[in-house]
C-alpha cells in the first residue's frame, strides 16, 4: 500500500465525514422553514357529504336557541360547521348585544360534536366554564353565548 494511496484514503474519509455533517445540517436547514402550510381545506374535505347524510341514532341533528331574544331559531347540523354570531354569514344569527359578529362555531370530528370559541369578546360558556379550546358537546348540553343559550337536539 503506497503512501499516496493511504493519503488519498485519509482525505476521502475526512471528506465523507464532512459530507455527512453537512447533509445533516442541510436537512435541519430545510426543517427551519420546513414546516409547510397544509393544503387548502378544499381537497381534503371531499369525503364529507356521504357521512352527514346518515346520522346515527342518538346523535344530534340540529342546534336550537332555547333561551334569549332569538329563542326558537334552529339550524340543521348537516350544514356543519355551524357559525354562531351577530354577523350576516352566521348560520344562527343572534340579535344579542353581548354576542360577537363571529362568536363561536359547532364542528364535528370523529362523530363527536365540538363547540369552539372564535375569539369572542364575552366568551362562550359550557356550564360555568369559559371555553379556551374546542370542547365536546352532547345532546342537551347548554352552551351560553352572551345572554343566549343554545343546545344540540335530535
Amino acid at each position: 500500500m503506497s503512501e499516496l494511496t493511504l493519503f488519498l484514503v485519509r482525505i476521502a474519509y475526512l471528506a465523507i465525514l464532512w459530507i455527512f455533517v453537512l447533509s445533516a445540517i442541510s436537512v435541519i436547514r430545510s426543517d427551519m422553514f420546513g414546516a409547510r402550510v397544509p393544503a387548502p381545506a378544499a381537497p381534503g374535505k371531499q369525503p364529507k357529504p356521504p357521512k352527514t347524510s346518515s346520522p346515527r341514532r342518538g346523535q344530534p341533528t340540529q342546534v336550537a336557541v332555547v333561551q334569549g331574544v332569538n329563542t326558537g331559531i334552529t339550524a340543521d347540523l348537516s350544514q356543519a360547521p355551524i357559525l354562531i354570531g351577530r354577523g350576516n354569514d352566521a348560520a344562527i344569527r343572534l340579535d344579542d348585544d353581548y354576542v360577537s359578529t363571529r362568536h363561536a362555531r359547532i364542528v364535528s370530528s370523529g362523530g363527536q360534536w365540538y363547540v369552539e370559541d372564535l375569539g369572542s369578546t364575552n366568551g362562550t360558556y359550557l356550564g360555568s366554564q369559559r371555553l379556551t379550546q374546542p370542547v365536546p358537546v352532547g345532546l342537551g348540553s347548554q352552551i351560553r353565548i352572551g345572554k343566549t343559550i343554545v343546545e344540540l337536539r335530535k
Partner: protein
Amino acid sequence: MSANSALMGFVHRRRRGAELFLLILALVVGIGAYAAVGLGVDGEVPTNLLGYGGWLAILVVGAHVAVRLVAPYADPVLLPVVAALNGLGLAIIHRIDLARDTGLASQQLTWMTLGVALFIGTLIALPDHRLLARFTYTSGLAAIVLLILPMIPGLGTSINGAKIWISLGPFSFQPGEVAKLLLVITFAGYLVVHRDALALAGRRVVFVDLPRGRDLGPILMMWVVSLGILVLQRDLGSSLLFFGLFLIMLYVATERPGWLVVGGLLFFGGATVAFRIFAHVQNRVDIWLDPFADPNGNGYQLVQALYGFAWGGLVGRGLGEGMPQRVPYVESDFILAAIGEELGLTAVIAVLLLYGLVVERALRAALISRDGFGKLVATGLAAVFALQVFVVVGGVTRLIPLTGLTTPFLSYGGSSLVANWVIVAILLRISDQARRPLPDLTADADDPDEQATQVVKVVPR
C-alpha cells in the same frame, strides 16, 4: 386548537426519507472507517468487512424501520448522527484492538446490538413520553438505589479507584449511566408540577427569589443524596454532570436567572471544598495546571494525549498509522485523542459538530414540544449530552481538569452505550409527539373517541 395550528399555518413533515438518506451516509462513515483501519494497519480491506458492515446495516435499518412504524414524525437527524458516532467509535476501538491485540470492538458491537434493541423496545413500549410522568418518584427511588448498588460489598467492584461498577456474573455494569436518565425524569416530573410554586412563592434574599422549603425540599434532598453518593464513590465526572443537570433544569423550569448565580457560587464553593478534602482532586488539578511536571508519571496520560493531538495536526496521521495505543484508556475516556491523532483536527471538529447537532435537536424538540413535561425531559437530556461532552472533551484537551466520563456513543463502555441509545429513543419519542400535527377537528373519523382529546393516549397513530 385546529384553528390555532391552521393559523400558525404549519405542519411538520415526516422526513423519513431524509432520515434514511442520512443513515446510509452514516453507515458509509462507520464502515468506511472500518475499511480505512484495515487498509492502514494491514494494507488490505478487512476480510470480514461484509459481515461487519452487514450487521451494522441491519442494526441501523432495524432502528429506522422501527422509527418509521411507531414514531413517524420523529426528528430525522438524531438517529443518523448517533449511528455515525457509534460507527466511528467502533472503528476506532477496532483500530486500538489491532494495536493491542484485544477484542473490545466485538464486545462493543454486542453492546450496540443490545442498545439498538432497547432503542426499538423503548419506542414500542412508550407510545407517549407523558406516560413517564407517572413514574416521577418511582424513577427517583430507582436512581438512588442504582447509585447505592456499587457500594454494597460483594456486588460493587472498584475499577481504577472509582466504586461505580457492579458485577453480575461475567458482565460489569455502571448503574450511574442509567441513573442519569431516571434523574432527568424525576426532576422533570417534579418541576413541571411545582414550577409555579417554585418560581412565585417564597422570599427574596438579596437578588435571588428563594422558594419555600416545602416546594424545593423533596427535589433538593433527592439531589443531595445522589450527589453525596457520587462523591463518596469518588466519581467526579458524574457528580459534575448531576450538579449541572439539576441547575439547568431548575433554571429552565422556573425561568429565574438567579439560580445560575446561586448554582455558580455553590459550584465554586463545592469545588474548593473538594479540592481541600480530596487528594485525587488536587492531583487532577495539578496535572491540569502543569501536565509536563511529571510527564512519565501522573501526567503521562494527558501528555501523551496532547502529543497525539499535536502529531495528528490538521488532517491526522491516517487511520492505522498513528500510535494511539500508548495513551492509557484511549478506548474509553481518551477516545477523542485517538481521533485527533489519526484523523486530525478536521475530524475532531466534525465529531464536536455532531454532538452539537444532537444537543440542538434535543433542544429543538423541547422548544416545539407542547407539554411542560416533554420540554423539561428533552432539555434535561440535552443538558446531559452537552455537559458530558464538555466535561470529557474539555478534560482530554486540557481546557478543564480531567474528570472521568465516557464520550457518548464513541467510547468503549456497554452501560453508557445502552443508556445513551435509550435516551435517544426517548428524545425521538418527544420530538415525534411535538412534530405530530394536532388532531384536525374538521376531519371525519368513524370512531368517536379516536381524536376526542389531547390527553395521553395508550395507542399511538
